């Protein structure tokens, strides 16, 4: 199924069960946040984990997707599925432009270009009239799915978010295990060699970049509908940093790692919030510990111990 290895199939079954059971135990809004970030981290992982491209401005696509979906749902009254689709498109389009510029350089230069472009997107969102400046777009209605099903209840919305997440997750997994994905990995391992084998590596990188940005837009659009608000937080470069941390924490280049990373990071933010000013300090300590103790991320280390791929 989808090219899952046996341990991956088991892990997927566990994750699926957790997604189904969790809303009856935990607060659904919190879980939706986790799923949105998990999808965002999966999209990011597609680039860094499988193509070896470190994008430092991924918040731009996440946030822009959020703004686009929020604006479509609020100002034009689009139904949620169309609004989210529009957010995905916005992320993808922005990714096409930024990616086209950025993939011309490699390594640190690539990272710096994406960072600069991401900051440009942030200042655009700060000043553009439709984003509402530091107020953001508020009062975004969840609306009726396909114009029929009301998404007002948290459980209904959770079901939608879960389906979107699973779609994105399986898509990433499918891409990674397709012939296209094999070439991406070849580029990661040795780009000149991939070129010498006759692959137009730039085109492959650009397509991967666009897919990753579109998925980030999908995650951002979903998040803005869940919370009814799209703000500067989601385009800020701190968000770009956060998704890097999530992916590193969970395990770079593992398919389940980013999901785990998003869960850990969001839970810390949520359950440590009562510690007030100490939150950032505690988070810092945990991150440093993780980076030192789990060089390959929580799931990366686990997979290594069990001699499996996750």
């Amino acid at each position, binding site marked *: 199924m989808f090219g899952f290895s046996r341990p991956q199939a088991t892990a997927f079954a566990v994750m699926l069960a957790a997604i189904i059971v969790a809303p009856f135990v935990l*607060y659904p*809004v*919190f879980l939706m*946040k986790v799923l949105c970030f998990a999808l965002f981290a999966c999209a990011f992982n597609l680039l860094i984990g499988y193509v070896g491209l470190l994008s430092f401005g991924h918040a731009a696509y996440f946030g822009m997707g959020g703004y686009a979906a929020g604006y479509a749902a609020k100002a034009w009254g689009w139904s949620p599925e169309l609004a989210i689709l529009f957010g995905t498109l916005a992320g993808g389009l922005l990714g096409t432009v930024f990616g086209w510029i950025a993939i011309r350089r490699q390594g640190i230069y690539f990272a710096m270009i994406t960072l600069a472009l991401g900051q440009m997107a942030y200042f655009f969102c*700060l*000043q553009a009239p439709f984003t*509402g*400046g*530091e*107020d*953001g777009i*508020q*009062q975004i209605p969840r609306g009726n799915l396909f114009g029929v099903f009301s998404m007002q209840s*948290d459980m209904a919305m959770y079901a939608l978010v879960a389906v979107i997440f699973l779609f994105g997750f399986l898509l990433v997994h499918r891409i990674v295990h397709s012939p296209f994905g094999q070439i991406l990995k070849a580029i990661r391992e040795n780009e000149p060699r991939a070129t010498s084998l006759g692959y137009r590596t730039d085109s492959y990188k650009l397509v991967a970049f666009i897919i990753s940005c579109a998925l980030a837009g999908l995650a951002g659009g979903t998040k803005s509908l869940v*919370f*009814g*608000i799209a*703000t500067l*937080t*989601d385009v800020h470069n701190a968000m770009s940093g956060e998704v890097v941390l999530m992916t590193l924490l969970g395990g770079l280049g593992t398919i389940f790692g980013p999901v785990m990373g998003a869960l850990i990071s969001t839970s810390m933010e*949520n*359950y440590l*919030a*009562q510690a*007030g*000013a100490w*939150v*950032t300090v505690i988070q810092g300590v945990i991150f440093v510990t993780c980076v030192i103790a789990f060089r390959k991320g929580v799931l990366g280390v686990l997979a290594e111990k069990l001699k499996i791929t996750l």
Partner: protein
Amino acid sequence: MTLLSRRTLIATAAASSVPLAAARAQKPTLKIGVLTDLAGPYQDIVGPITVEAARQAVEDFGVAGKGYNVEILVGDHQNKPDVGAGITRQWYDRDGVDIVVEGGSSAVALAVSEVARDKNKVYINSGGATSDLTGVRCNANTIHWVYDTYMLGRSTGGALVKSGGDSWFFITADYAFGHALTRDVSEFVTAAGGKVMGKVATPFPATTDFSAFLLQAQASGAKVIGLANAGSDTINCIKQAKEFGITQTLGGLLVFISDIHSLGLEVAQGLVCTESFYWDLNDRTRAFSARMRKRVPERRLGMAQAGAYASTLHFLKTAEAMGIAEAKKDGAATTARLKAMPADDDCFGAGIIRPDGRKLHPSYLFQVKKPSESKGPWDYYKVMATTPSEEAFRPLKDGNCPLIKT
């Protein structure tokens, strides 16, 4: 996200094991969520002292022997509307919070007020500046207690023109709040017969060097330099104006006493600003401040913190008058009752809450004392002018609040 102190934790644990105490633990509980900036740029303007102010309100009200408990929860919105709305949503949904007080800067305030309406609970803001909260974005679950951009503009703008400051130059933080404040104050300045000589927008955030803008303001020849920014931006502007020897009057459009404290009188002297509360205003404010000193010995409260005290107290009084079960049932009905009840507290005196949610009380134009005039710690302000409560805020009909049409 409940903030359980160790004492509450032990008390709860003890209560569950002792039958007599268990019966007591089943008393109805009013839950008050204090949503504030605990660690960010506004932690001195609101922050931990706001929490203490709310606790003081519970103490002054006196819950002992009344057959119900009052519990205070604390949350940090980090000045992000999404974080603030998220905490509030969880409080209302999961933790059974009845009312959120304070609730941060404009953007957070607007987001929280939406959540309060969706979940039909109560929200009383005291830290936010936007007049939209009781204007186009008003709703039946929100009350705005302390100040807004209209009140600041009217007091500082109007009064300064009257006392001779009839030409203005604005240094505006380049985002929605800065522009709104500049617009509102400009209207008052021109309405009072003054004129605006120009304005300059400073990139926000991340401007720390205001020298170019200050020199531009100085060269404009305007009598007053209006600072349409807040927090550290304002502080930097005032400090740097002092370093450049700028002699024009500085009009701080959103300045709190904690800002004056961090600047020191030597630098801040002569600055004109507006607040609706000052600890040394009258006997009642002095008595209140004496009580607060037991909790916060080192500092005096600014208006936003006093607002958290007053709104918590007003809510408790109203809830008792309504009956606890009734007060917890329907947020909109409770808010309507809050508006109907005349408010009276030590910080703002007697006042009323208008149907659009605007709390009315006088606003005061202060000038910061010279170091030689100051008789003791925190003796910073002298009153220049008082705007009576019926004139201090935007008239009901001009706000375009949808509640008023129906």
